[in-house]
């Protein structure tokens, strides 16, 4: 791979132009309804220049100052998940003939080459896990696959972790190490650009980058290292599997059940959670029917419903499923924890339940 | 000896009216002894529920008075409350409220014309029957109704009990793209709306001139909707805050609706009253379309209400087009409110006519008292007067079925909304 180059801030629009010329629609961070979300960028002016976030358990607020930086914030309410694993989509449709015959029609999403700018290290780690889940088993998911194949990822190393972040503890950030096409380190005066894939390399070549001053690299590295240092939260260990399953009857589960709303916000914002329900929506006249899927969660009743029985009827069992899966049985399934330390489930939990705190309380002293 | 036949007719459930009502008719010696439009929507006591609630809750609560015209209730309420807070809606809010309200007129009027009234004039029991013989007309009507709903949804998320309105403006401003898409639909619907005016006028409407007083809002430059002074064909011209000095509500034993009267007499509110009093405020194409019908407005024929509704649909579409021209979303879709105590009045033109509210708020913005006068109770005395006349003209010797049909047609023509009356209607004829 080529040595990193420097993209002066005024030339950032060249990156958008190059991506657009290469046929991508460009998604990037934008302020909408009081949060930073990934949406289609019309120009570099759409970026959240000088916008900073304050995140606390159950609270998220934005603030502006006159900083020139556009990526001086920690992740917003959603990672890449909704772009690939759609919150709701039709999987196939069926139609009934007058003789009762049924015809099935696959429904593939439109293959829209999409570039996402501003992706964080934790989100890349989560993407890797979702790829494993949806694509690497015996039955690759074509809906996810089509979107994944059309994705171009421009990562930005994290320099402004929120109070809820703990990617350093899970080993997934704040530096984006791999899984991107291009990576950016933001400095006041511009960006250090690194290519991370053959696709990225091609684009890198079109950017007419300037040579990098080693001092700039040092500043960037220093900021990233400081970002790791600044993180306040940690998980007791990277592998809590045995410890969690040894504590299935810990009183803390009852305690958290008093506070938890069983609202599924945490699993919905979690970039690795993959649960979904399949549903059917027939036309009124019965002539055709849509079979769709939508995000589900282990916090719903439907998640564990089997003919008349709900396996996890109460919140204690639901919260326990979430934590034991996320931090425990994920190891059995994908060889690592399902938590990438993005902190979203802490900030976006309406009552501010903190996964790191709960894990520590349940696992007590008995983790490695 | 039909003349001396004694009649006792009861229509226990009136079809194709909103809410439920009944009509009792007692005829004795060829004369109507009793004629009662019984509204038995059980009293829902909204005015009491509102007491002790915060001002922000009011728009969501009053919407629940009527599923067919929730926007009207919300608009009268926010007007009254903003009046107390000294909050004048900015031009964007004012314009978008009109668009929102137009959606309701279009929806409600199309529903009434096609689903409730037109089957009468064409001799069908329901729109489904009518659709078999007049598929295109019905389809056009349903499409207009759907478009009205769509306009409400753009500002309120749903057309029944929309969630977008608030004191100070709206919770959310639609995006430019959404507005552009809507504009396209509105443009496409215009020719159909214009044709609807001619179509309603071509129906075999009874020729039935009568004497009545029209009451409506009047605005210096707009066809009245979300503000104005209260005027009447009898020369009344008052600010809305003077309503209680001229209009009196009283109770009748058979009805949970309160009857309103103007200087002791029945009066008419609603599309025909509005049109009669505001012809000069209509958009030119609507005036022209009305001109081509050959009907002379102001009209004294109550059955021209259906034509007035069609004209208002046409007008509302043109109004939406005008208001959404060069649309852009504002910084904030609402102005923040600072509560203070006081009494405020709100009066807007619901699809069925004048909808008057009064609120007393305390310093924290909580409701101390509320009073709501819906259009249907204002029309109730007028409907009974019309019925009496109309049945006598038809001939009381006619069989019960004919009387019932005539009675229902007359009532339906007013588009009474019995839920609104916060009360309702069934016909019961007794002949002795």
């Amino acid at each position, binding site marked *: 791979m080529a040595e990193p180059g420097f993209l002066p801030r005024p030339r950032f629009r060249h990156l958008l132009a190059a991506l657009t010329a290469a046929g991508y629609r460009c998604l990037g961070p934008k302020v909408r309804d*009081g949060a930073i*979300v990934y949406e289609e960028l019309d120009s570099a002016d759409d970026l959240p220049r000088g916008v900073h976030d304050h995140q606390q358990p*159950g609270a*998220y607020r934005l603030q502006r100052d006159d900083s020139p930086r556009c990526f001086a914030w920690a992740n917003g*309410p959603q990672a890449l998940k909704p772009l690939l694993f759609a*919150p*709701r989509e039709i999987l196939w449709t069926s139609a009934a003939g007058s003789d009762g015959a049924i015809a099935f029609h696959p429904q593939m999403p439109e293959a829209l080459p999409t570039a996402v700018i501003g992706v964080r290290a934790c989100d890349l780690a989560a993407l890797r896990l979702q790829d494993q889940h949806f694509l690497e088993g015996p039955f690759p998911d074509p809906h996810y696959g089509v979107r994944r194949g059309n994705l171009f990822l421009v990562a930005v190393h994290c320099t402004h972790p929120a109070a809820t972040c703990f990617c350093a503890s899970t080993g997934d950030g704040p530096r984006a190490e791999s899984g991107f096409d291009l990576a950016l380190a933001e400095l006041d005066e511009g960006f250090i650009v690194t290519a991370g894939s053959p696709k990225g390399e091609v684009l890198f070549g079109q950017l007419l980058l300037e040579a990098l001053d080693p001092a700039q690299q040092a500043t960037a590295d220093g900021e990233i290292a400081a970002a790791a240092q600044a993180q306040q939260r940690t998980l007791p260990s990277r592998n809590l599997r045995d410890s969690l399953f040894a504590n299935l009857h810990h009183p803390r589960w009852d305690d958290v059940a*008093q506070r938890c*709303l*069983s*609202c*599924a*916000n945490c699993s*919905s914002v979690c970039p690795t959670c993959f649960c979904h329900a399949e549903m059917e929506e*027939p036309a*009124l006249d019965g002539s055709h029917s849509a079979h769709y899927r939508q*995000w*589900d969660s282990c*916090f*719903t*009743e439907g998640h564990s419903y089997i003919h008349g029985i709900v396996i996890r009827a*109460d*919140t204690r069992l639901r919260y326990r499923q979430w934590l034991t899966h996320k931090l425990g049985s994920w190891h059995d399934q994908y060889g690592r924890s399902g938590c990438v330390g993005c902190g979203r489930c802490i*900030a976006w939990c*309406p009552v501010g339940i903190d996964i790191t705190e709960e894990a520590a309380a349940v696992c007590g002293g008995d983790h490695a | 000896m039909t003349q001396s036949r004694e009649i006792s007719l009861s229509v226990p459930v009136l*079809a*194709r*009216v909103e809410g*439920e009502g009944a009509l009792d008719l007692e005829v004795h010696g060829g004369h109507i002894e009793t004629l009662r439009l019984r509204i*038995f929507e*059980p*009293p*829902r006591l909204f005015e*009491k*529920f509102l007491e002790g609630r915060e001002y922000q809750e009011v728009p*969501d609560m009053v919407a*629940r008075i009527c*599923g067919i015209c*929730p926007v009207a209730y919300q608009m009268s309420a926010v007007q009254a409350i903003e009046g107390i807070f000294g909050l004048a809606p900015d031009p964007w809010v004012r314009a978008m409220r009109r668009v929102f309200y137009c959606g309701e007129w279009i*929806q409600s009027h199309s529903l009434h014309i096609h*689903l409730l009234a037109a089957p009468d004039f064409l001799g069908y*029991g*329901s729109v*489904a029957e009518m659709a078999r013989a007049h598929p295109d007309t*019905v389809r056009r009507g*349903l499409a207009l109704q759907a478009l009205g709903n769509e306009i409400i949804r753009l500002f309120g*998320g749903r*057309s*029944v*009990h929309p*969630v977008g309105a608030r004191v100070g403006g709206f*919770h*959310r401003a639609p995006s430019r793209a959404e507005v552009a898409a809507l504009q396209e639909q509105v443009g496409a619907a215009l020719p159909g709306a214009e044709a609807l005016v001619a179509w309603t006028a071509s129906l075999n409407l009874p020729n039935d001139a009568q004497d009545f007083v029209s009451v409506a809002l009047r605005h210096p430059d707009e066809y009245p909707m979300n503000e104005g002074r209260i005027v009447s064909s009898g020369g009344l011209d008052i600010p809305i805050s003077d309503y209680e000095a001229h209009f009196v509500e*009283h*109770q*009748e*034993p*058979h009805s*949970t609706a309160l009857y309103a009267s103007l200087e002791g007499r029945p009066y008419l509110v609603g599309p025909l009253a509005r049109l009669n009093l505001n012809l000069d405020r209509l958009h030119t194409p609507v005036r022209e379309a009305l001109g081509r019908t050959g009907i002379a407005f102001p009209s004294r024929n109550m059955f021209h209400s259906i034509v007035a509704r069609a004209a208002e649909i046409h007008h509302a579409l043109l109004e939406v087009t005008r208001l959404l021209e060069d649309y852009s979303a504002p910084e904030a879709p609402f102005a923040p409110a600072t509560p203070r105590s006081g009494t405020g009045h709100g009066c807007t033109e619901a699809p069925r006519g004048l909808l008057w509210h009064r609120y007393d708020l305390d310093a924290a913005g909580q409701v101390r008292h509320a009073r709501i006068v819906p259009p249907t109770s204002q029309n109730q005395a007028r409907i009974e007067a019309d019925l009496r006349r109309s049945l006598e003209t038809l001939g009381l010797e006619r069989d019960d079925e004919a009387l019932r049909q005539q009675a229902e047609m007359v009532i339906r023509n007013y588009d009474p909304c019995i*839920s609104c009356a916060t009360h309702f209607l069934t016909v019961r004829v007794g002949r002795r």
Partner: protein
Amino acid sequence: MAAAKARLAVHKFSSCDGCQLAFLNLGEDLLRLAELVEIVHFAEAGPVDPEAPVDIAFVEGSISTPEDEERIRQIRKNSRWLITIGACATAGGLQALRNLADGPGWIAEIYAQPGYIHSLATSTPIAAHVPVDLELWGCPVNGRQVLGAVRALLFGVVPALEQDKVCLECKRHQAVCVLVAKGLPCMGPVTLAGCGALCPRFGRDCYACYGPAENPNAAALGRRLEGLGLVPEAVARRFLFINNGAPDFAEAGRHWQEQAHDPEP
């Protein structure tokens, strides 16, 4: 042998008519429905035959007069499937607020001659009077759910009901959480999905018009609302609103009303 069309009725009790509009606003689907089933009673749409036996009876509105009580019993007898539509029929509606207060006193204050008004002191859900086969929540119900129920019954199967909370629906729509990002007292975490998370998508707090969801933790949400700065009375009002008669909300409302009058030390 062509099977006889299913017979359908729509009945109304004390309500705003908004749920019936779920039918009247169907557009072309209304005509389609009229072809699929025989609509034998639906006063607002035309057919009037309230006593006819039917396969499916939709019931809007709450019970608030002695005549209502009798009528709903008759409807139950005449109907194979009795489905309530909306907050009024399912939980008593906004007007159930009178159950908490002085109904007759209120009538006296509004009507000069309260004796003319024959009304019960309460507004109660249909299920308080007769067995109900299916409850569709919402103020108003949405047409999609109503049609879904009809379609399922025509297929000969039990309709599927939405069970998730508004929060999950809100996330599926990728709305930004108004509680977390704006500190608004949103009821989404205890409210049944079905509206499409309209309020949060409009930037405002959900006011629970779809009623309580399964497994609602009203106590935890109440505490959170208080933490956002609501006084106990205001927390109580959040629960005692459109679905004040739903047991989970009624209980939470009572609790916070007590807190307001008798705050714990």
